[in-house]
């Protein structure tokens, strides 16, 4: 809660710092047709003559009463803009999250249980490579290969152009979602794989694994019967904790694929200085990331008694 308030204060402060005049941004190209008196009127109507502290308090009050403000680039209340886009973004984020989790655990266990083998080297090499790959470049390559050259997937948006969003069938929707989700998932896989691999390497050297080996269990048996449970919970925890990175990636992926979700709205708001929208999204993602961190904390406390003890000690 305190962190959320701080996020609000920091992002509000940053907006105040901005040299871009909100009245100019609102007027856009009509700037030249408006007299200084009219500008002063607009500024007064919006409360820009008050001190930043008063403005901040006012904004917080509005926020608590559920009033997020008006987005001038979409000509809609901010809550509507977010409401229309949030489910599309959640589809993308959720799909990518689940996929990267499944792939990360799978690859991590495969690599970690065969430490030093060619499979391990291949998977680790791949993970190091994707960890250094720019998200938006990968998205561009995917778009170039699958949409432009091969023509398997559409080049943009969440549905065919010229069709109302209500009339888009779930199948077409999925078709449009496929490439962005895959791209986003591929990037999350790297850290999860390396993390799971390290856990598995440690596990395969443990007494539990030695005992299982002594009983005549095969390597694959040990990896999947014991290792899966051992390594998957830390991976899920890490995946919850890295929700912020995933959202950051979705900003770029949605931009490249012109996918009309929250990330695209964020970029548009930043480029065209839509302050209320930008602030609302910052708060929303902070909430989202905090929930993810809480889930990660809760999970690690549930599964690892040591963290529970260290918490009570403090």
């Amino acid at each position, binding site marked *: 809660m305190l962190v959320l308030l701080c996020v609000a204060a920091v992002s509000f402060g940053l907006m105040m710092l901005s040299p871009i005049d909100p009245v100019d941004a609102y007027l856009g190209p009509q700037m030249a047709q408006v007299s200084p008196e009219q500008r002063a009127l607009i500024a007064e109507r919006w409360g820009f003559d008050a001190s930043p502290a008063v403005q901040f308090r006012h904004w917080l009050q509005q926020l608590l009463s559920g009033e997020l403000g008006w987005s001038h680039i979409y000509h809609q209340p901010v809550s509507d803009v977010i409401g229309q886009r949030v489910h599309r973004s959640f589809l993308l984020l959720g799909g990518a999250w689940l996929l990267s989790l499944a792939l990360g655990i799978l690859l991590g266990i495969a690599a970690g249980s065969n430490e030093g083998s060619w499979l391990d080297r291949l998977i680790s090499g791949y993970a190091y490579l994707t960890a250094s790959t720019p998200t*938006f470049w990968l998205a561009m390559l995917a778009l170039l290969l699958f949409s432009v050259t091969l023509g398997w997937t559409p080049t943009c948006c969440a549905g065919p152009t010229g069709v109302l969003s209500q009339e888009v069938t779930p199948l077409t929707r999925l078709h449009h979602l496929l490439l962005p989700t895959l791209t986003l998932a591929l990037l999350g896989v790297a850290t999860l794989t390396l993390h799971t691999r390290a856990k598995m390497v440690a596990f395969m050297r443990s007494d539990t694994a030695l005992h299982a080996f002594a009983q005549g269990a095969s390597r694959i048996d040990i990896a999947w019967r014991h290792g899966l449970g051992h390594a998957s919970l830390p991976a899920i925890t890490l995946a919850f904790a890295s929700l912020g990175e995933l959202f950051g990636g979705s900003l770029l992926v949605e931009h490249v694929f012109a996918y009309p979700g929250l990330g695209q709205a964020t*970029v548009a708001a930043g480029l065209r200085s839509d302050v209320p929208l930008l602030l609302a999204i910052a708060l929303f993602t902070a909430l989202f990331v905090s929930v993810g961190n809480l889930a990660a904390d809760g999970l690690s406390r549930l599964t690892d008694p040591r963290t529970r003890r260290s918490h009570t000690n403090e």
Partner: protein
Amino acid sequence: MSSQPRLIAAGYAALLALLALLLLGSTAWLGDSPTRMQFAARLLPPSPEHWLGTDALGREVWARTLAGLALSFQVGLSAALLGTLVALSLASLAMLSPLLDALVSLLIDTLLSVPHLLLLLLIAFALGGGTEAVIIAVALTHWPSLARVLRAELRHVHHAPYVAISRGLGKGQGFIISRHLLPHLLPHCLVGALLLFPHAILHEAALTFLGVGLDPTQPAIGVLLADAMRYLTGGYWWLGVFPGLGLLLMVLAIERFASMLREVLAR
């Protein structure tokens, strides 16, 4: 045997230094080739005359890519150094009193709960864009994780016997920080800065790609890729593939060097 990793790391360092020199010097020997337009040679695919092809204004992609990498290198280096400096000063500040410590922790938690890229967007917006704004924005978003490591490390040394002896001898807090704590932290800072470096480069490129970073007239990698986006549906693959590949290789090289150095120093 134990000297082998050190040797490899040293060799790697020399290679990277050479690369850095090459990139930083490239502005001199490239001359105006990254920006020279040849209208007779627009959007040509890679060939012996045009190594990596040309863009929509007939500019050489290879020259623009090199210039972009040099720019990324400079921006990344400045941002990583600045970020490390911020992390170090705030981590030391946190040692001075419990109140300051709580404040710094709160700031770290706050900044870590906003996705990097969104925070970058907010800061770049607040500063109005441009090269300095990008450097400051990247530095300001990347210090928290390093500051956390440094803070933990500081607390660890703070209770070490030699520090306790120094304190027993009546040395002041300032003396202990500058003589005992900072020298211990130096290797951590070095590795931290190096690990920040690739992140800084990637985030600078992403920010520029989105249009809120470096000036679009400069041949930055983000600008090149944003340009390539516009011609993507036409199938002009060389515009996007080569600059991105260059960026990937540079980031990968620095990343590997940083982790190798960390292993060597951890011994």
